[in-house]
């Protein structure tokens, strides 16, 4: 491979062969090649057994991460990439809030803005984004591993990795904790070390580490979902754990990587990255559940029972039927106001033909439909990608099988073939035969190793598809919350009109009744204002998030495709190199070699000019 510095050159061919001979000698006795579980050194990427196993417990979407058992090398890789992601994300965050932080709120209507800390936070975010922070340089990115991928290009990283990061998060050091559980049984769970480095205002210290368990992440996700209506909140890792498997090292490591990626995505989000919820989650010492700031943010836990009680009171007219302004800015489902939920449902049905829907709203609805269509296609593409990864893996494994069985033939000839050779006086031919077979076997095993690495790398790269597939439901949810809020708003407006009408028709002599109605009208006017303000805020978030999601997605797609292609180029070069070398060893003529040799000159230039130098 002309001009490539290749740290993972497989050594001089002869050494390689000897190495292999020893390795295979050691394994020949025990390994059944037909079982497909050959052992090739200690490279975990090339073992088909490991690759095949975990993909079984895949639940809703194919998860490429499960296909590749993480290794230390991979962790480094992920961290490096993740750091890059944060850097990239912050590039958006400097622009994002400018759009999102301008909800059309008339100040008189929002009575309780503290329940939603977004506005203040967004200001802070902007400030942080604008301020230079020398300390926030890329700190979590360790040097690229020297031996993990050979000349296969590493994932695409943004072009300016030195962009200052306001918030960098890592998850590490899973620790098993036992706590008394139900029925006197001990329940154990895993706690992860969540370390953050922040230059955001409001943080008590620039570096902090806390212990969090998976349930805390679930709580965080719930909280963010409630606080960031209209935003496409990055999805947290699935729970999908089979009991019993939950404590396995592979599972814990996979979950750790998933949680880290989750937090990094949150940190990179223009609005969520500087939210109080995330800050408290990352900062609050000790048990999160007993933290006052945390529990203060949790939505008031109105039970369904309470809602039902309210409903019956409303029916008999003892409870106010007027939605208060705080509740008007909440989704109906959360407020547990069953009467309101029913009304809104009725309004939803009526709206189809009735009330005129603004053009902008129609556009946003089309976007939601487009997102749903995209989910379909992403799902198909993701499955196709999974199939591709599987086939790559199988091809690599089969090359390994063939190499191993070729080696067995050679070993057999070596051990037993002497009988024929000495009987017929053809020892020289035998040794030539054995050497040829061993060379071919060695080449096949090298191919198998390369394929294994390619499989791992491709799985990682195509993970982009799966990540985006997982992100689409959050987008749909974001759009839906706007539609729901519009229902709330319009329902309240309908109520208000009805009250106005009732007031106009009322006999003015019934002073007490009139006063009551006037009170209702005044409260409803406030509520309508609040609902409308909330709607406008969600809409603004929708618009900004649509742009952000599309830009990030397209950038990811482009990077994915380029990385995928660069990987294929490098893999094809490596394999061509191995085969040409083998053909030369087996006595192919220069003409034959010239005919099959790839012109690597132009492709190596391409790889060099790739966004990230793909070769170490």
């Amino acid at each position, binding site marked *: 491979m002309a001009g490539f510095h290749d740290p993972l050159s497989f050594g001089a061919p002869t050494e390689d062969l000897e190495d292999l001979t020893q390795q295979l000698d050691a394994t020949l006795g025990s390994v059944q090649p037909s079982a497909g579980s050959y052992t090739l050194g200690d490279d975990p990427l090339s073992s088909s057994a490991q690759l095949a196993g975990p993909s079984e417990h895949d639940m809703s979407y194919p998860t490429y991460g499960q296909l590749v058992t993480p290794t230390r090398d991979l962790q480094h890789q*992920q961290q490096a*990439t993740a750091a890059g*992601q944060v850097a990239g994300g912050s590039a958006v965050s400097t622009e994002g809030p400018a759009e999102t932080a301008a909800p059309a709120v008339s100040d008189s209507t929002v009575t309780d803005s503290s329940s939603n800390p977004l506005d203040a936070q967004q200001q802070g975010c902007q400030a942080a984004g604008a301020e230079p922070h020398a300390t926030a340089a890329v700190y979590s990115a360790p040097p690229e591993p020297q031996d993990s991928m050979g000349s296969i290009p590493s994932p695409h990283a943004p072009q300016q990795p030195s962009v200052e990061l306001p918030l960098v998060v890592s998850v590490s050091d899973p620790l098993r904790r036992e706590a008394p559980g139900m029925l006197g049984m001990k329940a154990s769970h895993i706690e992860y070390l969540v370390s953050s480095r922040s230059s955001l205002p409001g943080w008590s210290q620039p570096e902090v580490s806390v212990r969090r368990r998976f349930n805390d992440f679930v709580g965080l996700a719930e909280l963010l979902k409630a606080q960031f209506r209209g935003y496409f909140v990055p999805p947290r890792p699935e729970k999908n754990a089979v009991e019993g498997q939950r404590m396995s090292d592979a599972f814990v490591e996979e979950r750790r990587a998933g949680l880290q990626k989750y937090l990094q995505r949150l940190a990179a989000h223009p609005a969520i990255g500087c939210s109080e919820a995330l800050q408290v989650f990352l900062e609050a010492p000790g048990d999160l559940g007993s933290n006052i700031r945390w529990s203060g943010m949790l939505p008031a836990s109105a039970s369904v029972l309470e809602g039902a009680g309210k409903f019956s009171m409303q029916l008999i007219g003892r409870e106010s039927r007027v939605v208060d302004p705080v509740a008007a800015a909440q989704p109906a489902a959360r407020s547990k106001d069953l009467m309101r939920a029913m009304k809104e449902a009725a309004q939803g049905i009526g709206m189809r033909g009735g009330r005129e829907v603004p053009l902008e709203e129609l556009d946003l609805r089309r976007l939601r439909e487009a997102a749903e269509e995209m989910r379909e296609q992403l799902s198909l593409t993701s499955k*196709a990608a999974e199939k591709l990864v599987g086939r790559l893996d199988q091809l690599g494994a089969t090359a390994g099988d063939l190499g191993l069985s070729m080696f067995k033939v050679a070993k057999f000839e070596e051990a037993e073939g002497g009988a024929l050779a000495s009987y017929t006086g053809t020892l020289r*031919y035998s040794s030539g035969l054995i050497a040829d077979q061993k060379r071919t076997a060695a080449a096949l095993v090298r191919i198998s190793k390369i394929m294994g690495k390619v499989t791992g790398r491709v799985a990682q790269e195509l993970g982009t598809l799966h990540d985006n597939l997982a992100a689409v439901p959050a987008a749909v949810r974001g759009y839906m919350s706007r539609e729901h809020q519009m229902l709330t708003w319009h329902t309240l407006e309908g109520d208000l009109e009805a009250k106005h009408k009732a007031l106009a028709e009322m006999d003015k002599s019934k002073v007490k009744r009139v006063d009551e109605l006037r009170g209702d009208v005044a409260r409803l006017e406030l509520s309508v204002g609040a609902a409308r303000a909330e709607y406008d805020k969600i809409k603004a978030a929708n618009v900004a998030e649509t742009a952000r999601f599309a830009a990030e997605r397209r*950038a990811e797609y482009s990077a994915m495709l380029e990385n995928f*292609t*660069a990987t294929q180029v490098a893999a094809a070069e490596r394999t061509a190199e191995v085969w040409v070398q083998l053909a030369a060893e087996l006595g*192919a003529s220069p003409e034959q070699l010239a005919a099959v040799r790839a012109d690597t000159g132009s492709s190596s230039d391409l790889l060099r000019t790739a966004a990230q130098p793909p070769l170490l």
Partner: protein
Amino acid sequence: MDPLFGGDSSNVRHGSFSNPTGPPPPYESVITDSASHSIMQAAPEHQAAAPGSGMQAGPAAANGSSSAGGGPAYSSDFEIVVADPVKQGEGVSAYVSYKVRTTTRLPQYNRPSCEVIRRFRDFVHLEGQLAEKHKGVILPPLPEKNAVQKFQMSQEFIEDRRRALQVFLNRVAAHPVLAKSASLQLFLEATEDTWAVEMARGQAAAAGAAAGGGPKKRLEDAVGWIKGLGAAATNIVGSSSRATDTAEDPEYIKVRDYLVALESHLSEAHRHAARLTAKEVELGEATLEFGQALERLGRLEEGNVSEAFSQMSSRSAELVAARRKGCEALAARFEAPLKEAVRSVRAVTAVCTDRALALATHMAAKHEVDAKKVRWAKLRGTPGSPQDKLTEAEREVSEAEERLRSSKIAYEELVATMTEELNRWQKERAADMAALLRDFALAQASMASEGVRAWSGLLAELQAVQGAAPAVAAAPATAT
């Protein structure tokens, strides 16, 4: 398209059966190529001893190699082409006929070139004749008689068989002994009528042998004698081998056991080779599907992404088409010859069986002599035995002794031939294996280089697209 294997391999595969002719396979060139191999350099005399090597190349190599001017160290006296497979008849009795075109410089042939029509079972008959008349010679393997595939008569199956039959005939014609065989000449020259008579004669002979008498009878006696020793009748080869092992050369026993084990090792390797080709094809399919899915996904996006995904899709389609050809080359140059190598070992073990039977015949003859002698002695020891009975017994003894002598000679000749053949076979096998492994490496290298070209072409396109839109290139990549 494929400068490596000659220009017309795809033509041959894709059904232009009418024209696989052209110049004969340049065996010399293949041999000359292999001379640059280290083993070959160590043993240049090998070239004369392994005429069959490189025959896998078949007619496809016809227009190919450039190094034919290297001074042929050996050239076959024949050039044989099997062509024009035509399906005859319908239903269960359907079969495929082939034209067998021969050019030869041997004087005993009526004309320097001739063409006959033969079907698969004619080849089987030829093989049987050669085996019977040239005991101890390791015959080139015929393709397997595959009833299921024959019934389906797929074009691929017919073409594979055509190629294998051609390889078979050329290997026979290149064999130092078989080349001069009258059976071969009859097969290559005889008109359809003459050949029909030969086939009928062969069937009659088989029927006659079954009816009793002749050399076959004695062979069956030998088998019966072996069975008499208590061996299971199910596996004559195994039991006859075991029964005669004590009388065999222990060195030879080792060789034979090695060959039997070798066959299973090689067939395992062949199984993986077949799987490898299949997996290559499957990967191609998956790549194609992935490209198409990406293209559809790209249609939901705007601008560069959409363009990039559609480039990826069309490029991967090109690549997969090229790969498909590569896989065909792989199947023809690597998998099929490897299978032939397995069958070739099987041909040797068939000779081992003949040898065991010859030895068993010899031992049975010895047993018979002893029995006759005992009877004769008993008669002589009995006073008043009629003279005619004594004479009869004595005659039987000398007849048995004659059979003992001839069976000894038959066995020894077979052993001598086989020893020579094993030497030839081993050298040829080394050369064949080197050639097929080399072809394998070249076919793989060619496919991989195709991949480099296709993927780096795509990469260049992608980078051009990115270059046109720096805003997107600089945008964040938040996913792995």
